[in-house]
């Protein structure tokens, strides 16, 4: 089954969703969607797999109701049994907590912990019927986990560049033998 991106009313790209999930995202016939293999963004109604969504329920023909300003556009705030649980980000945030220890940057584990705290709220809020709260926790967990992961990647790049610079410096100072004999492992 294809997984789609779509462009919401604010022009922001969201994704990926299965056709069923797109339905609960309240996309309209005019909403631009894209999936792998398509050359460009296309109206949802023009895609056979998605046009079925608009036939199933008359709701999708009517224009989307204006959402109150407090609620993110594109997201329904009312809890509904059909809405799938938002992604919890629990695995990712656990990884983001442990990884900094491998990279000698244990301070950044705090970001992962914030991620875990939010991620663990996603399911309990969802099961309680608080869909909006669950979604908010999911978004928070995603934000902190992604910040932690990007810092991790940047840190490793910095580290490798530093190691290469220092080795190059050491080589130019004392010749290659000292650097490698220091490690105890000859080439």
């Amino acid at each position, binding site marked *: 089954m294809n997984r789609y991106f779509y462009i919401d009313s604010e022009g922001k790209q969201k994704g990926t969703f299965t056709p069923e999930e797109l339905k609960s995202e309240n996309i309209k016939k005019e909403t631009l969607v894209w999936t792998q293999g398509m050359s460009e963004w296309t109206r949802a109604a023009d895609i056979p797999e998605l046009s079925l969504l608009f036939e199933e329920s008359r709701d999708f023909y009517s224009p989307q109701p204006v959402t109150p300003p407090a609620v993110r556009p594109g997201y329904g705030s009312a809890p509904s049994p059909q809405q799938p649980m938002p992604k919890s980000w629990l695995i990712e945030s656990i990884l983001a907590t442990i990884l900094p220890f*491998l990279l*000698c940057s*244990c301070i950044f584990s705090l970001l992962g912990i914030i991620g*875990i705290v939010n991620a663990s709220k996603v*399911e309990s809020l969802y099961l309680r019927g608080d869909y909006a709260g669950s979604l908010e926790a999911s978004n928070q967990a995603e934000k902190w986990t992604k910040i932690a992961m990007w810092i991790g990647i940047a840190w490793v790049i910095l580290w490798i560049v530093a190691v290469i610079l220092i080795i190059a410096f050491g080589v130019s100072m004392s010749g290659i033998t000292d650097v490698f004999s220091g490690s105890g492992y000859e080439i």
Partner: protein
Amino acid sequence: MCSVDRDTKFNPVIGAVVSLLLAAAVFLLYRFDPEEAAVFPRCLFLVVTGYECPGCGTQRALHHLFHLELSSAFSENGLILFLLPYLLLGGYLAFFNGNRRFPGLARLLFGKRAAIIVVSLILLYWVARNL
């Protein structure tokens, strides 16, 4: 239980960058002894407070591990030897569709309870190694 976690979209560019970085890091850690080569980063927490963080000794442990010296790897940082396979499993579950194939495993080892246990283990190890 109605859980339909969407997969984190696997981005080939990020995937390539990460695997390149991993390969470079593994090579450097294999080639040079962090104890003697002095080109590896120091733990900021250790420098500032004088106490070891839960990750201190990871580079030395990995260096020993890559040379198959398990017991010296364990004495440098025992925690990381357990966390490393856990990390690899988590990476598989999160980024390679593993949580679709093994949803029970993901729930058991990366659920809320597991997260609390892992974080407490790290904190315990932190306290214990500084006693």
